[in-house]
């Protein structure tokens, strides 16, 4: 994979990435419609596929919050045309890595030392690139460590990236601009949290200690003295990502065991801790042949407000659904329904009867 020597950090440079994607997408539409003239049966699938590829290319050069946005979209599989989500899934695994000199510079900025001075051995080639950082392998005192280094400029770019990305998202994904506005704030605050490795360090330690009793889960040990705002050091965990793990043909029993660990992990976080590792994509779980699983990356943690929790999970109880008034009240609390719309000719009952 080709290393990047710099990340486009100025707003203009980043904006031009989006313009590039926009122009390409426009071209795809022209291509689509001229093909369609010749072959009216042509499905929109192909168009979606072309669009997704071009958007992905532009976003992956950008890294940072735009790439994170790609991840968000790919999580909502099923709400998007399949062609989009297939392509965006790639964002969860790899993006072009940063060059060695930039990595060393980051260490010097935050520790005043080079990686070689801090660790017994430090692999300057990243083993894995993530959305807002990349992972290096290192050794110290005989321990194998994973060191996450954040891409420079990411934190500063979050807000401006989202602003630039918004019109593109509105247009391409056929989402309502108002809906997007409403969620932008939430996404922005979460993304800013994710760029704060000090916060992630504290949360990682807190949640992994709280969940330590759950069977089959393995959490790495974190090293505050080797971590900073932009660098996070933890034990190296072995294991395979979901797709690679499935290629090893694990037995049904092992798959059930790992599935159970996943369920228990979320059950405990949501209902007991009321804060949750809100980034459950395959890149954050390392599965092993003995049925245990490593959990990494507490960058994105959603604290669930009590009011929301109570209403959301009341809906989950089958008894609630048999009580239309209660259901409607909860829907209003959750802001699914707003009073004027509710009055419109039995809107809710029509939606629910679609089920």
């Amino acid at each position, binding site marked *: 994979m080709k290393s990047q020597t710099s990340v486009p950090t100025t707003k203009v440079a980043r904006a031009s990435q989006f313009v590039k994607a926009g122009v390409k997408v426009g071209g795809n539409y022209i291509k689509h419609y001229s093909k369609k003239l010749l072959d009216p049966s042509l499905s929109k699938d192909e168009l979606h596929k072309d669009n997704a590829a071009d958007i992905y290319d532009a976003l992956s050069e950008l890294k940072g919050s735009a790439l994170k946005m790609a991840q968000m979209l790919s*999580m909502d599989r099923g*709400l998007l045309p399949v062609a989009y989500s297939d392509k965006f899934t790639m964002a969860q695994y790899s993006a072009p890595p940063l060059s060695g000199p930039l990595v060393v510079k980051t260490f010097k900025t935050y520790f005043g030392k080079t990686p070689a001075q801090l660790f017994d051995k430090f692999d300057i080639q990243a083993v894995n690139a993530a959305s807002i950082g990349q992972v290096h392998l290192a050794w110290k005192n005989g321990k194998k460590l994973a060191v996450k280094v954040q891409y420079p400029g990411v934190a500063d770019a979050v807000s401006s990236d989202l602003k630039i990305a918004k019109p593109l998202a509105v247009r391409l994904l056929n989402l309502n601009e108002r809906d997007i506005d*409403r969620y932008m704030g939430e996404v922005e605050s979460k993304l800013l949290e994710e760029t704060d490795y000090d916060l992630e360090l504290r949360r990682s330690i807190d949640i992994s200690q709280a969940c330590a009793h759950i069977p089959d889960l393995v959490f790495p040990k974190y090293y505050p003295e080797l971590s900073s705002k932009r660098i996070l050091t933890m034990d190296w965990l072995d294991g395979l990502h979901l797709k690679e793990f499935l290629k090893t043909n694990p037995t049904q029993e092992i*798959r059930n065991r790992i*599935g159970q660990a996943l*369920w228990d992990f979320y059950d405990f976080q949501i209902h007991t801790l009321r804060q949750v590792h*809100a980034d459950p994509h395959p890149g954050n779980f390392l599965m092993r042949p003995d049925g245990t699983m490593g959990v990494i990356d507490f960058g994105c943690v959603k604290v669930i407000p009590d009011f929301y929790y109570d209403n959301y999970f009341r*809906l989950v*109880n089958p008894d609630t659904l048999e009580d239309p008034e209660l259901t409607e009240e909860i829907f209003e609390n959750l802001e699914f329904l707003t009073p004027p719309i509710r009055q419109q000719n039995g809107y809710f009952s029509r939606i629910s009867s679609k089920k």
Partner: protein
Amino acid sequence: MTLMLAEPFAVDSFDFGDDSYFTKVYAFAEGLANVQELKNSKVARGSQDGLYVNRTYYGLYAMLNELKARVTTTKPEWLRSKKELV
């Protein structure tokens, strides 16, 4: 959507390998996306707190589906139907 996601909670053990469940969820989502009232609505729908909570469940279910795992869906007692007890 939430109603569909609640299905595994209604039973003690759920087979996430059951693709028919996921097909149903996706079909339902697609149906919702085509409801004109939703699309043209002047108000955004769903609390912003739901964004990450729903995303979390999507991600979790999608992974369990790929794993084809059958899990015991442990849950707090108050989420159970009282009727089961009778």
